[in-house]
């Protein structure tokens, strides 16, 4: 509050001006020796990644320096790196940010010629939803799949059973009905949880109604019957009073206490539940998302890109190749709990042994990326959430709210 934020903004531009001026002659990355690699991984700790690349360092003689970037700082860090021209050699890219990063022109193009010497990087090795052209921006591939993430339905089997529900809901209609039943348990109980910050959920609902949010010309289009049905579902859950309305609701606590015994979330929630409430083991489970027409879910995760001005392109690609080895991907799952993107790794028996991972793998097979618009989090997804939440939270007129959404998002290119 005391600091002058607007000055910070101006200063950033100034720094950009000064540093961009010398970037042509400046260094690419911190790799002064030419044999070192700097890798930016997203998260709070680099310990797991350091351990993962240790064998690679020993074999290749390349010193890999890992820098952990907290998710909240990712945008700022990347902006500064683009402005100064001095980024890492390899960078982890959340798929929702891929388009922005690619548009900045800071990433190396990884076309067939560039990766021909690295057999593990061939598109056919990866899950179809993120492989090759699926994550190409404007026809150019600038990243390689790294970890995947999907959304599945979490449910408290014990609470559902007590309420007379024997199987988790298989369709969204069933889910809405079950949520109503569960809400009727009593004061302070709900049936389902809608995270107010989750812009993917209404999209998943639209896909499940057999719809698309991108038209045939590759532009965002929410004005479709399937989306309308998804809005009915989304607002219906609120109208039934089956979901909590407070924005600071804690989904992990809500699930553990049983306040919200069902929700759609990612594998990270499973880890959080297992850690916070090991005694719940066996009282909850996951299954594929409810269907209407389809049971499509969200495919999220991260890719890895190579910084365009890296001085160690061969080393960077070598590292990417190493990280795409099925056994390394399995090792990463064991260390960090993140799902592989390499098909062979997903088939590994260590993963298949876990029934929950079997559900994730099954769901991954019918999962899709959010449209690669220039700024999903800050623009398209935000507009989507703002309009839906204004209807359910502040009682805004549905038609007006949707009209605003249509006009603000139509024409946004998703290619």
């Amino acid at each position, binding site marked *: *509050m*005391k*600091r*002058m*934020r*607007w*000055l910070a*903004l*101006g*200063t*950033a*531009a*100034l720094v*950009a*001006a000064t540093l*961009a001026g010398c970037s042509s002659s400046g260094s690419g990355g911190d790799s002064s020796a030419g044999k070192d690699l700097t890798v930016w991984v997203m998260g709070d700790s680099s310990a797991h990644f350091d351990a993962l690349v240790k064998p690679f360092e020993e074999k290749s003689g390349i010193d890999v320096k890992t820098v952990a970037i907290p998710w909240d700082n990712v*945008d*700022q860090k*990347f*902006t500064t790196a*683009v*402005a100064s*021209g001095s980024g890492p050699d390899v960078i982890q890219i959340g798929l929702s940010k891929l388009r*922005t990063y690619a*548009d*900045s*022109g*800071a990433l190396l193009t990884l076309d067939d010629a560039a990766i021909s010497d690295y057999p593990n990087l061939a598109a056919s090795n990866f899950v179809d939803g993120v492989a090759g052209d699926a994550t190409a921006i404007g026809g150019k591939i600038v990243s390689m799949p790294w970890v995947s993430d999907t959304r599945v339905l979490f449910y408290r089997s014990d609470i559902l059973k007590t309420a007379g529900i024997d199987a988790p809901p298989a369709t969204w209609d069933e889910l809405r009905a079950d949520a109503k039943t569960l809400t009727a348990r009593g004061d302070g109980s709900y049936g389902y949880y809608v995270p*107010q910050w989750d812009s993917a959920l209404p999209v998943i609902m639209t896909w499940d109604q057999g719809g698309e949010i991108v038209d045939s010309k590759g532009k965002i289009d929410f004005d479709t019957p399937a989306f309308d049905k998804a809005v009915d579902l989304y607002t219906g859950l609120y109208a039934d009073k089956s979901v909590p*309305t*407070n*924005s*600071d*609701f*804690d989904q992990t*606590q*809500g699930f553990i206490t049983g*306040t919200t015994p069902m929700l759609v979330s990612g594998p990270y929630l499973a880890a959080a539940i297992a850690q916070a409430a090991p005694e719940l083991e066996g009282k909850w489970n996951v299954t594929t998302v409810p269907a209407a027409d389809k049971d499509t879910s969200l495919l999220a995760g991260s890719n890895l890109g190579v910084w365009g001005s890296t001085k160690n392109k061969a080393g960077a690609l070598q590292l990417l190749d190493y990280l795409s080895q099925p056994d390394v991907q399995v090792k990463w799952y064991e260390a960090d709990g993140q799902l592989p993107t390499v098909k062979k790794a997903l088939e590994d028996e260590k993963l298949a042994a876990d029934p929950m991972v079997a559900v994730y793998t099954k769901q991954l097979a019918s999962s899709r990326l959010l449209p690669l618009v220039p*700024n999903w*989090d*800050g*623009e398209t997804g935000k507009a989507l959430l*703002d309009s839906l*939440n*204004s209807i359910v*939270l*502040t009682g805004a007129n549905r038609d007006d709210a949707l009209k605003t959404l249509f006009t603000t998002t139509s024409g946004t290119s998703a290619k």
Partner: protein
Amino acid sequence: MNPDGARRHGPPRIAGHEAMKTRLVPYTFVAPAMLLLIAFGILPIAVALLVSFTDMNLAGLGDWSRIQFVGGDNYATLFADPAFWQALGNTALFAVIGVPSVIVLSLVIALALNRSQGRFFRALRSFYFVPAITAIVAVALVWGYLYNTQFGLFNYLLSVVGLPPVPWLSDPTVVKFSVVLVAVWRGLGLNVIIFLAALQGVPKEYLEAAAIDGASGVRRTVSIVLPLLRFAIFFVTITTVIAWLQFFDEPFVLTKGGPLGASTSIALFLYQKGFSSSQFGYASAGSVVLVAIIAIITVVQLRLRRSDVDY
């Protein structure tokens, strides 16, 4: 600062370069401060002004040839953007509630603390200063838990006396007051210290003379202390107004500006546009508008002060 003045005080006829030297002396003294001000104050504003007429984004940052001048487009979009007006309205509301609260409360606390120099009162001084030096992230974490609808302390206390829970950070109206409360609590410490320092400058003789004349404690405070604190109050008012117009930390860490932009201040709006959406041109246009607003309000305050009587 006045070269003519310098010459008038010097010897009547001196050699040319001597006069030059004398004239340069004051400038060498102010130069370091000036340079810093230009480099970190004026220049960034000038750059922001320039950028506000372009469509600069992340792509343009990496490759300058992709930046185009768009004239006043950013300003036209800005003034037609409901989110901008919402943020501006929120900021006005924050300032209207926050500024008087901070000034009055910190003045009252300072006056109360000044009544004694005892050990207990000295401990209280540090107590009031603690919020000002606590990291905002820690503050947000603790207040986030206090405010939490599910397991927060405030709602627990309400439930104890049989009141329904309040959605402190979820209701678009309540959230505005929730973030202001945290900011007021945080903002008190520094101003209390400033007022306490100013209170040391109130001559004891005046107060004693008034006491001998039979003036009550309230009377002495209102007629002697407060008028002598005029400059401190003026200073605190200006800095507090500017701080509240740049209100950022509390909504950023507590609510990220939500729900539905209900707690988004103008500075947070600029941050979201600039650093989350990478629309540097657009954000710069907004920051230029904010600078203009702050400048106008500050000039008005200075003008009002000019007509003031000095003791």
